[in-house]
C-alpha cells in the first residue's frame, strides 16, 4: 500500500511529467489560457492515461514485438475517440472550445511515454497507480499555468470575475508563449526547492561526509 502511495505521489514533484520528464507540453500550452477547458482537458488526459496503462498492462504478456507501437497507439487513439464522443454528447460547449486539442491527446507524450516505459513491464495495479499519479502531476502544472493566465490575463477564474475592473490586465498572458515562460519559472522554483531539500537530507543522513569535507 505504501508502494502505491509513493507511486502516486512521486510524479507530482520529483518526477513531474512536465518539468522533469519534459512530456505532455503540446496540449498543456494550447489549452492553458483559461481554467475551465484546462480542467476538462486534465480529466480527459487522466481518463485516457488510465485506460491505456491498464489495457497495455493487461496485455503485456502477449504483445508481439513487431507491432508493439501500432498496437499501443491504436488503443490510445480508441480511448481518445471515445472521450471525444462523450464530451461532444454531454458537454458540447466545452468540446467545441477544446476542439482540435482533444484529438491531440493521442499525441500527448505522457500517455505513450508511460505506456512504453511503465505499463509494458509492470502489473495492472501498479500501472493504474502510475497512470493516476502522472495524470495528477500533469494536471497540477497545467491547472497552475491556466489559473495564472486566466487570472492575470482576464481577471477571471472559471469564468467568474475575481480581480476588480481597475486591476490592469496583462494581455501578454493571453498569448500562448507566455505559458512557456510560466513553465520555465515553475521549473526553476521546483528545481531550486528540490535541490535545497536534497542538500538538507544528505547532510542529516550522512554526517560522515561532512566531516570528510570539513
Amino acid at each position: 500500500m505504501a508502494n502505491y502511495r509513493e507511486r502516486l505521489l512521486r510524479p507530482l514533484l520529483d518526477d513531474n511529467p512536465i518539468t522533469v520528464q519534459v512530456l505532455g507540453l503540446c496540449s498543456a500550452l494550447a489549452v492553458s489560457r483559461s481554467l475551465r477547458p484546462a480542467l476538462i482537458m486534465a480529466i480527459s488526459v487522466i481518463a485516457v492515461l488510465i485506460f491505456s496503462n491498464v489495457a497495455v498492462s493487461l496485455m503485456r504478456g502477449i504483445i508481439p514485438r513487431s507491432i508493439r507501437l501500432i498496437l499501443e497507439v491504436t488503443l490510445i487513439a480508441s480511448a481518445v475517440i471515445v472521450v471525444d464522443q462523450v464530451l461532444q454528447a454531454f458537454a458540447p460547449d466545452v468540446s467545441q472550445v477544446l476542439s482540435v486539442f482533444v484529438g491531440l491527446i493521442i499525441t500527448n507524450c505522457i500517455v505513450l511515454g508511460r505506456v512504453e516505459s511503465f505499463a509494458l513491464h509492470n502489473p495492472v495495479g501498479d500501472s493504474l497507480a502510475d497512470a493516476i499519479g502522472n495524470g495528477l502531476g500533469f494536471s497540477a502544472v497545467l491547472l497552475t499555468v491556466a489559473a495564472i493566465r486566466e487570472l492575470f490575463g482576464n481577471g477571471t477564474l472559471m469564468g467568474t470575475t475575481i480581480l476588480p475592473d481597475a486591476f490592469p490586465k496583462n494581455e501578454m498572458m493571453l498569448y500562448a508563449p507566455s505559458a512557456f515562460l510560466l513553465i520555465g519559472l515553475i521549473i526553476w522554483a521546483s528545481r531550486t526547492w528540490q535541490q535545497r531539500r536534497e542538500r538538507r537530507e544528505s547532510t542529516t543522513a550522512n554526517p560522515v561526509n561532512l566531516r570528510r569535507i570539513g
Partner: protein
Amino acid sequence: MNVDTVPRTLAVAVFVALVCSALVSSAVYLLRPMQQGYALVERNRAVLDAAGWLAEDGVSDREVVERFLDLEAHVVDLTTGAYVPELDGHAFDHWRPVATANSSGNKSQSTDRVPVYIVRDDDRLERIVLPVHGPGMWSTIYGYVALDADLATVRDIVFFQHGETPGVGDRIEDPDWRDEWQGKKIYDSDGSVRIDVVKGGTSEFEVDLISGASVTCDAVGSFVRDWFSAEGYRPFLVRLRMEEQP
C-alpha cells in the same frame, strides 16, 4: 507463450482491432443521436438569434425548434441565385454535405446550396439571415449574418460554432463586437463588396478588429467578403431585390 510468430501476431492484431472497433463503434452509435439533436438545436438557436427572434434569455430547446419552424426558409442555389423548391429549407443542413455524383469535395467552399431564412413583417421582407463559414485560426468558424430589408446593411452577426482560442479568438462572440457590425454596409452603391475588418476601422464599410485576436478577426472578415461576392450570395441578393420590389 511466444507471441512473435506470425500467426500469433496476426491473432493479437485482429483481437485488438475487434475490441477497439467495438468500443469506438458503440460509443459513436449510442452518442450520435444526442449529439445530432443538440447540434441542430444550437444551430437553430443561432439562426433565431440572428433573426431577432430570441429576445429573452432561457428559451428552452423545444421553444427554439418551434420558433425556428415558423421562420420562412428556402434553399438557394448559389450559382443561379434561385430557390431550389424541392429541398426543405428547414431540414437542409449544408454544413454536413451529402456527396452528389459530380462533387469533388476538394474546394474549400464545397457547397453550392445553402439554406436562407427570411423574416417578414406582414408581407414585406424585414430581415434575411444568411449562413457564412470559413477557416479560423484553429478550426472552421460558422456563423450567420442578418441583413436589413435593403439587402446591403448588416443587422446582426451571430457565431454558431468555432474552435478559436478561449479568451482571445472567441471574443468574436462578444456583444461588443456584434454591435460593431450593426449598421455596416456590405455593398456600396455600385454593388461591389466593400465590407472589411481592419484595425481602427470606422467607416460604414469597416469593422474594427479585436486587438490580440487579429488572426481570428481577419479570418472572419475574409470569409464574410467571400460569401457576399459574386461566387457567394450576390447573384441571389440581386434576384431577391428584384422579386421583392412591389
